């Protein structure tokens, strides 16, 4: 009896979390613009996306920003995780602490701080400022993902490489990096998702000439429910789903 109650409770919570998403996906295939009733299956809203130049452009922009910033964040983040783990340098604790501040601080604080920073420096907001900001908020997630993995390492492996005459760079390139690869890939996928989905920080640091998908969706949604948005949101969901599964699988495979 107690067990059943527990299962019912869990089903209710999963229902709460997933029902709206399921309805969104179903509606994206519904052959009607206004009614909420089911009027038959269609791919028409997806086909219409392909004709919408503005949406496609903003999707392209989003993918470009997400790709570049996730790659740079992964690069810097990997080096940072290794540095934080292996090296002792002045300010190490402060820098690591600041990464946690970035991760915990509300998006809006980061958005306005970067906006002020860019404006006072005289940098025009747009593609460039978006990439810099996205790298910054992705960085801590990469560092934490990879740091957790290095902490599990057998330190003797690195010592062995050193004994065999490897320099610091060679040890990194040929020993540490190959062992870290699954965590690196996982951090990259998470950064890509974070960057692709971000609304709040991007809202402040993008310029009028560079439109990205989440902000485009935001301005469309303000005007009401549209089947094209349902289709677009479903696509965005699918990308997230693939990234999360892939990232999860990479980390799990490696723990064996």
């Amino acid at each position, binding site marked *: 009896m107690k067990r059943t109650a527990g299962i019912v*409770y*869990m089903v209710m*919570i999963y229902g*709460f979390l997933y*029902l*709206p*998403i399921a*309805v*969104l996906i179903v509606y994206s295939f519904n052959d009607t613009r206004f009614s*909420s009733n089911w009027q038959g299956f269609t791919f028409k809203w997806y086909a219409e996306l392909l004709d919408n130049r503005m949406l496609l452009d903003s999707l392209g922009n989003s993918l470009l920003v997400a790709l570049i910033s996730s790659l740079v964040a992964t690069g*810097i983040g990997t*080096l*940072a995780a290794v*540095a934080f783990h292996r*090296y002792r340098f002045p*300010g190490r604790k402060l*820098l690591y602490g*600041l*990464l946690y*501040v*970035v991760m*915990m*601080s*509300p*998006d*809006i*604080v*980061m958005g*306005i*701080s*970067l906006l*002020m920073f860019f*404006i006072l420096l005289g940098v025009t907001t747009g593609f460039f400022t978006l990439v*810099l*900001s996205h*790298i910054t908020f992705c960085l801590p997630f990469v560092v*934490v993902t990879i*740091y957790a993995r290095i902490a599990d390492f057998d330190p003797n492996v690195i010592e062995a490489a050193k004994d065999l005459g490897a*320099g*610091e*760079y060679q040890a990194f390139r040929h020993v540490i990096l190959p062992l870290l690869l699954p965590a690196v890939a996982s951090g990259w996928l998470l950064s890509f998702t*974070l960057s*692709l*989905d971000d*609304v*709040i920080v991007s809202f*402040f640091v993008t310029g009028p000439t560079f439109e990205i998908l*989440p902000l485009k*969706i*935001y301005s469309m*949604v*303000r005007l009401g429910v549209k089947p094209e948005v*349902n289709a677009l*949101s479903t696509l*965005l*969901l699918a990308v*997230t789903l693939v*990234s*999360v599964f892939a990232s*999860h699988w990479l980390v799990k495979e490696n723990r064996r």
Partner: protein
Amino acid sequence: MTERSAFKTAVVAVVGFWIVAFVFLPNLLVLVASFLERDETAFLRRVFSLGAYRGLLDPQIAGIFTRSMGYAAGTTALCLLIGYPFAFLLARNAHRRLLLVLIIIPFWTSSLVRTYALIIVLKANGLVNALLQAAGLIQEPLPLLYTNGAVFIGLVYTLLPFMILPLYAAIEKFDPRLVEAGYDLGASRLQVLRHILLPVSLPGIIAGSIMVFLPALGLFYVPDLLGGAKSMLLGNYIKNQFLTARNWPAGAAASMLLTFLMGLLLWAYFASLRRSGDPGGGLAR
């Protein structure tokens, strides 16, 4: 030895530069701006002033803050109330690996998309109204959308996974035999909860509360999309100061308030970690 130091210096320099340039300096700028005066053309005038902080005490603005705090506190409390038993059941479930992934997916899904999904469900001819009408509970569709209630539902819906995950992480490590030991020693259910479960899961409770409470103050698009004309969070106020009113010091001071709250919560988190005897665990890793 020279190669070692060259690689090490380069790595530390890049990482240090990035964090100082894009985290430390911008945040310092917010702090400085909050103590300056507003300027029509250059945004900031280099005159020390406490005006921006005094402005926060203006009854109308203080009203926005208290309401926003109310939303955030209510959201945090409800997420904790729903999430705690859920995380507990999850940690004990045989299929917890799969079930956990099902919580991680909404955690990473765009909360804008999830907020939009909620609009579809709550609108006048949406699923909730349709179900209530079919059940004969109501005749006319209820005005669910564009209300303060919708903002509240939206915040809980968006942030619940952010509460469940840290709670799960704290509860999963917990040894269930401790509870049995408690019962064996004659503790009541309430005593077990109060003296065994809560202290052990306190870091998870605080970590989850940070991840719910702070975003609940800032998620400006939730009241924008779900709320009525008067629904406003601290985030909406800050956004307006920067994009509409062009009053940087006022926006910066409000944002400092958020940073201050974050500092307070992080302090509570680390204090709870020390008390639970797990200084290296969880977030501090």
